[in-house]
């Protein structure tokens, strides 16, 4: 075995991998997100996702170093050597001092950690909503009366009328092009939904939209936390037919199709 060849010990490889992963998540991803979305600020990786990814990284490192006895030994060796200290008198002076400093610093780091964890801080509560709460039975089986059984619109006129209704009533929040960027979104913490996002109305049946438009935030079940949703209950002002028209227009404006029950082969 050549001593000239530089080989990082397993312990340090693991530590460095974890650090690299962390830096990637903490700085790499936010920066890349900023570049890609063309916005002007870094977009942090949410803490929950961060915690999840880091736990996985640690598990991965542990799995790797324990795949063989040799690796475990190799991994443990630097740690043990550090703990043991210089027993053979071969360490340089600065290494000895570095060890002492590390050992001395550790309890204080721990103390500091405990202090920052236990000290009373006020973080604003995490808000999370079930993305698609369960539709009530009364709405479940509704079909858009303005569509033919094959899904085509009965009359193009309905889409146009729905478009006017959409632009008048929904545009202020959901935006001219249904991208969820209307001017009234400015003050609302829960931003209006972008219908162009393929994860939103494109995955839903029309009856679902009908329910959401008609009942609004007030009609949401408790687990979907209506407290911050500004969605009005449009049953107050719009007729059912108008709502169905708006639904046609939403899909048309956003350029997506409603989910269809798949045909059974």
């Amino acid at each position, binding site marked *: 075995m050549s001593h000239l060849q530089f080989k990082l010990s397993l312990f340090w490889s693991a530590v460095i991998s974890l650090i690299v992963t962390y830096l990637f998540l903490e700085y790499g991803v936010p920066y890349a997100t900023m570049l890609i979305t063309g916005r002007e600020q870094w977009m942090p990786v949410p803490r*929950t996702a961060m915690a999840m990814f880091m736990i996985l990284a640690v598990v991965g490192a542990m799995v790797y170093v324990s795949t063989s006895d040799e690796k475990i030994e190799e991994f443990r060796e630097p740690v043990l050597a550090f703990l043991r200290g210089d027993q053979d008198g071969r360490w340089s002076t600065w290494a000895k001092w570095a060890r002492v400093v590390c050992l001395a610093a550790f309890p204080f780091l721990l103390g500091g950690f405990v202090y920052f964890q236990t000290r009373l801080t006020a973080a604003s509560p*995490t808000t*999370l*909503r*079930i993305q698609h709460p369960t539709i009530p039975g*009364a709405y479940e089986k509704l079909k858009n009366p303005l569509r033919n059984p094959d899904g085509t619109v009965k009359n193009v006129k309905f889409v146009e009328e729905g478009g006017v209704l959409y632009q008048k009533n929904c545009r202020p929040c959901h935006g001219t092009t249904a991208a969820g960027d209307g001017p009234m979104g400015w003050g609302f913490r829960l931003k209006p939904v972008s219908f162009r996002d393929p994860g939103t109305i494109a995955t839903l049946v029309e009856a679902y939209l009908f329910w959401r438009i008609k009942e609004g935030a007030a009609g949401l*079940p*408790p*687990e979907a*936390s209506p407290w911050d949703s500004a969605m009005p209950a449009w049953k107050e002002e719009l007729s059912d037919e108008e709502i169905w028209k708006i639904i046609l227009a939403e899909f048309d404006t956003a350029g997506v199709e409603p989910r269809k029950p798949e045909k059974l082969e």
Partner: protein
Amino acid sequence: MKRPFLGVTIFTVVIVLLFVYIGEVLTKVSGEAVKGAGHGVSAVGATPEAGEAIFWRKGACYTCHSVGRRGSSIRAPNLGESGPLNMPIGARAALRAQERTKQGRPMAATDYLVESLAEPGAYVVEGFKNEMPLVWKPPIALQPDEIKAVVTYLQSQGGTVDAAGIDKSPFLQKLKAAAATAAAEVAEAWKPYMPGDPKLGQEIFFSPESPVGCGKCHATKEKGGDVGPELTHVAATRTPQFILQAILEPSKEIASGFDSILIQTKDGRLITGIVKKEDVASITVADSQGQLQKIPKAEIAERVPQKTSLMPENFGEILTVKDLHDLLAFLMTLK
């Protein structure tokens, strides 16, 4: 063998606990409401949540009242926004209380709510009848605390929850006293003269050959006619005495929506029945045999509301004592 087994057991338990912990965390993170709580269990404390549970389960209030879009009963006023005055009951109560005050019985909104449970007949909403059972009497038999919870639930429908105010209400005292009497009454409850056989009773109810044939007009579950009131849950809200009386003296108390009318046609026919459907052109009535008749309005000369029930009054004569008890036993199973 012993030691590895111990190790494996501990290891297993730890993994399962981890799983349970993740479940707890996910529940917390996802903000899942405690969907289970309150259902089925009797109320603890006078909270709107407990009241809601009672309203929709034990109290069986939902068999007559709906709350907004929840529920489908129309026998009694809707207690949600779609109810009378287009106001939910919590908000409505204040106006009703003013009305009651003008009628000479001064009270606040909370008092009105308590009163309407304590003395259902004291104030009856226009367009409805007083057919509300006394909830503190069997078979519903709510405890005073449970009634309080229901009142807070009603208050939470558009009003301010004020549990302390309920205690102050004089009507609650009345109710408590009445409930105590009722409890005493239960002690020496009404007993049938002889035990009935529900199976035979069912036969009497449904059999086309039986002299009474209740099934022609009344339905239980899916079966039966729809001339008279549906009896699927009759025993849940009515006492045996009430049922017995309703069989023997049908006209004494007629369920709302089942008043009969007498129609005289222009060609002189007389038709008595319950109005099932009415539109601009015609009126459809069901007669005492469960038959539907459609009469064009153009042919009607006169229509007179009747004070008597369409239900035959002669069951006391037709039924033997045993038949009556069998029938009653059957009806009592309908909870």
